């Protein structure tokens, strides 16, 4: 029951947050304009940073100290294997039927021959892994992403990706398995979440330290890195911009145009242009 409430609250929140929002920016060098909750986000970011510093990072370092790269690869493989059903379902929703069958096949082969997913046997056969969550499905369906949002403990996000996380949890085999055990249901769920969290953190440990060391504004660096990656990965099916391709000319008029638009605080450049065209047409009529 409580989960149902959580779901509908999340759905309502997404609708509320995305209703008035623009889609992903067309020019990725203007990402900072999509952070309308910057003050709130910075506060959560700071909280996450402190938790990471005093709790998560030491635990992650401990995990790294007691495991070898070989063991960690087995763990990462096993965790990735548990995402295959999710990918398979979402690939159907995206019309990627062939890849959906591959994902399902990978799950079947790797769960058995691959010893509970610790070895990627199917991958060696050429069955390529492609992870796809509900967020990718919504992206393909052209559901707007909404503004940038930093979530407590989970970090960089958007309303769409946050809501998708909840949906994705339902497609995990761990969730199905836990349903059979009423007594340990919650413990299994929290335990598995903790393992995933630390394993994921371990993978990004060096990269994030590098970024932090070389940033004068770590928050802005994380924000832009997250949004750039997202803009490239999540392409709407109706979008003609298959490739994010930013302008990189200076001293030439179009770069100046970008600057001028920035100064007049136009929120979304292409939309701005489009509305101009529409006005022109209306005037002709």
């Amino acid at each position, binding site marked *: 029951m409580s989960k149902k409430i959580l779901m509908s609250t999340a759905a309502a929140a997404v609708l509320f947050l995305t209703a008035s929002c623009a889609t992903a920016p067309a020019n990725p*060098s203007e990402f*900072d304009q999509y952070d309308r909750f910057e003050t709130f986000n910075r506060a959560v970011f700071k909280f996450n940073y402190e938790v990471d510093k005093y709790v998560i990072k030491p635990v992650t370092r401990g995990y790294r100290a007691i495991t070898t790269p070989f063991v960690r690869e087995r763990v*990462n493989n096993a965790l990735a294997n548990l995402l295959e059903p999710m990918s398979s379902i979402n690939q159907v929703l995206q019309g990627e039927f062939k890849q959906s069958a591959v994902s399902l096949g990978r799950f079947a082969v790797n769960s058995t021959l691959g010893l509970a997913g610790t070895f990627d046997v199917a991958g060696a056969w050429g069955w390529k892994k492609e992870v796809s969550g509900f967020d990718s499905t919504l992206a393909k369906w052209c559901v707007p992403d909404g503004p940038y949002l930093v979530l407590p403990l989970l970090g960089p996000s958007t309303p769409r990706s946050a809501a998708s996380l909840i949906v994705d949890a339902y497609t995990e085999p761990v969730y199905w398995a836990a349903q059979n055990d009423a007594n340990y249901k919650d413990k299994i769920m929290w335990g598995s979440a903790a393992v995933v969290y630390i394993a994921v953190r371990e993978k990004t440990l060096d990269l994030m330290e590098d970024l932090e060391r070389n940033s004068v504004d770590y928050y*802005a*660096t994380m924000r832009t890195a997250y949004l750039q990656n997202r803009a490239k990965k999540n392409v709407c099916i109706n979008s003609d911009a298959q490739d994010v*391709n930013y302008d990189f000319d200076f001293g030439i008029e179009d770069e100046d145009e970008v600057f001028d638009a920035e100064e007049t605080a136009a929120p979304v450049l292409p939309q701005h242009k489009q509305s101009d065209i529409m006005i022109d047409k209306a005037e002709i009529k």
Partner: protein
Amino acid sequence: MKKNLFWSFLAVVLLGIGTARADVDGAKAEAFVKKVTTEGIEEIINANVSQQVKDQRFAKLFNEALDLDFIGQFVLGRNWRTSTPEQRSAFIKVYRELNVKTWSQRFDEFKGKNFIFSGTTPSNSKNQIFVNSSVPMEQGEPAKVVWRVKQSGNNYKIVDIIIENVSLAITARNEYSSFIKNNPGGVDALIKDLQKKVNQPVVKK
């Protein structure tokens, strides 16, 4: 006869399209990036010389291969226009130093690895092209590395490095514009902070 005319007309049209779109020589751009990465791996990372020599070689290669004046100007964004000539040159200088330092450390990660090139993608910007490559990693998927190359005459320069969809230039541009927006010291404060980053000791792993 008519058929021949048609085909020659088609050939001319196609040739016209071909030359109009072939803004940048993709093969040459790719060869240029290949040369830079090979030199970096063979003569720096894998070379049996002292760290000091490695650092010197890297700085030379990095400064020659990348157009840091160009990148620096893009990175400062609209603040470039409002900066004084002194601020501009101070910024470019410190930005150059910081990049040489951070990338020489990052480049070390490619020890024992190599780049696999997979052709080019056209760019919206004039005289520019993307050179696609990937680096097989010990664990998981290969890392995707895309090089943005600018051509002027017969001269090629790297103007951006995009690792796993994240661009060096756009990241810095966003980071610095955010810093300047939130700092009363503006560009001068940015230059000062970047200098601090340059001066901080190198972290040994």
